[in-house]
């Protein structure tokens, strides 16, 4: 269990986590949603130990995150940052191999290479193995970086917008694979998603962030409703449920100029979208 208690993160005087507490369980896919700039990526970086919390505690398996034992802490993580540019003269296979950085020797064993290739095969990209990464599309890079993150055999897997560049097919390939592996390997998976419907389909636990605060959490079918969407994104929406009980969010276009929503935080008095629509 990954436990976060009373976490406060402040960066450049901007509060990105305000007294946040939650617990993430193994074998569950946890999805973080929330508006831009609300502290989602920051939260992942804080869990990874890349950003130092102002106060609060993060612990996993009898171990507490401390600056002194950072490399030990990080060994348990697979982390896929948001940036997917790969401007480097390396082959796809070499990039995936780097996922196992700590075990690579000067000469590569067949088994190590086979493992990386199997990882590529599982996401349907074996045919790209010997291509140069800098000639691939953004979506292909993203899939390859996903394979790389899995190579670390993490206990905790964190993905920052892992489907941002993927087409419909690969969105589902990635998320299905992630879901199966999470359950099979008993990982704690945490990812940031923007698409509420993908989140609703794949999350076992949804964490809703706004202005550095965890304003709701739980199973999507329990917490996703029009009021929440309105409160978080200031967008009107219908939320229906399909036969298996998975919520479906359909947003409603704003025709009127009477949008009265005024955000009640100091940092965002001006809402460009709202202003623009008036």
């Amino acid at each position, binding site marked *: 269990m990954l436990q976060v208690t009373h976490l406060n993160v402040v960066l450049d005087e901007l509060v990105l986590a305000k007294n946040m507490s939650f617990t993430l369980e193994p074998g569950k896919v946890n999805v973080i949603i929330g508006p831009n700039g609300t502290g989602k990526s920051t939260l992942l970086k804080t869990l990874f130990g890349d950003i130092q919390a102002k106060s609060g505690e993060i612990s996993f398996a009898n171990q507490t995150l401390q600056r002194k034992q950072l490399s030990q802490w990080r060994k348990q993580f697979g982390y896929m940052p948001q940036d997917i540019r790969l401007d480097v003269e390396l082959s796809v296979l070499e990039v995936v191999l780097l996922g196992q*950085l700590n075990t690579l020797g*000067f000469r590569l064993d067949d088994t190590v*290479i086979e493992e990386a290739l199997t990882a590529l*095969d599982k996401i349907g990209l*074996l045919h790209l193995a010997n291509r140069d990464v800098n000639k691939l599309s953004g979506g292909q890079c993203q899939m390859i970086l996903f394979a790389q993150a899995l190579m670390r055999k993490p206990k905790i897997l964190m993905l920052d917008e892992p489907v941002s560049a993927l087409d419909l097919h690969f969105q589902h390939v990635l998320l299905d694979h992630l879901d199966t592996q999470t359950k099979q390997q008993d990982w704690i998976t945490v990812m940031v998603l923007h698409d509420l419907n993908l989140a609703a389909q794949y999350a076992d636990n949804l964490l809703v962030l706004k202005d550095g605060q965890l304003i709701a959490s739980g199973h999507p079918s329990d917490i996703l409703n029009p009021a929440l969407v309105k409160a978080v994104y200031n967008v009107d929406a219908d939320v229906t449920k399909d036969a298996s009980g998975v919520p479906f969010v359909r947003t409603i276009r704003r025709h009127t100029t009477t949008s009265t929503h005024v955000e009640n935080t100091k940092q965002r008095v001006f809402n460009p979208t709202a202003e623009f629509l008036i």
Partner: protein
Amino acid sequence: MQSNLISDAVSSQRRSEKRRWSVIGILLIILVCSFILDVATGPSLLNVKNVANALLNLIGFPVEVDPTTKVIVASLRLPIAIMAVVVGGVLGVGGAEMQTLLNNSMASPYTLGMAAAAGFGAALMLYFGSLGIDTNIAVPLGAFVCCMLAATFLFALATMRHISSGQLILAGIALLFLFQSLLSLVQFVSSPELSQQILFWLFGSLSKASWTNLIIIISVTVVCMAFLIRDAWKLTALRLGEERAKSLGVNITQLRLRTLLIVAIMTATVTSFVGIIGFVGIVAPNIAKMLVGEDQRFFLPLSFIIGAFLLSSASVLSKVIVPGALFPIGIVTAIIGVPFFFWLILGKRR
């Protein structure tokens, strides 16, 4: 079926590794040729075949050899030729690692002011009359100290948590200008004779090569290279971007510092003995990258070999441009370097 595809992909990876090793092998042969040519050229015209025989004889093969040739080769030509290879190699590797570290193919110890700092240190020593120490020791020492001073400043910046590679490069370029101005200042206040002496040091020259200097340079190089090769995979990971390397478990700050220190020591050592030799540091890694990519297991040795080849062939040229005279090698490398550089830049546009 799938396992077949995987074993196909494994063998295709092996083939690609083999191809890159053969590229390294071929360039090594070219380097050996230019090395022999370097030994063979000079004021007393030696025949290439005799030189090759003398070299074979020196490394223990029972080959008949003319004694005069053997003496010239062993005591005069060989140290210079080896110096060219080692110094060129070190400059190539220094450039390669700076480019890796700073994620910028235009970075090198030269562009970051380390060479300029060494030049300033040497000039300062010459100006103060070597402080009473033997000039052959004092000048390299001054160059080494100043070069490490510039590097220390860069270290200090690199340890700061949120400093980007771009900012580090800018700081390096600022250092370059600072030390160049200081160097001009020393020249400005020096007598014309002294100023000329400084100028000649700055041109770069392999002619001060001796077996003692070589032993120092080679030992430093071997140790530093061993450290770099140990970090080969981490350095490769660094090229995916700092954040991603971090996510793969690389301690960025430590790796930066360690690599910067190694490059600084290597650069300071060679620069202090041969003066300022530009362009090898930028050009060699760029060619290596084109030939074998950025897997450091291949990139690192090839940067060394290409750097070594560039300086070795520049050394040949410096002797044949004006027959009987030794042209300053620092000038030759830049003259070959510039057209090459343009070719690289234009080639990249494709």
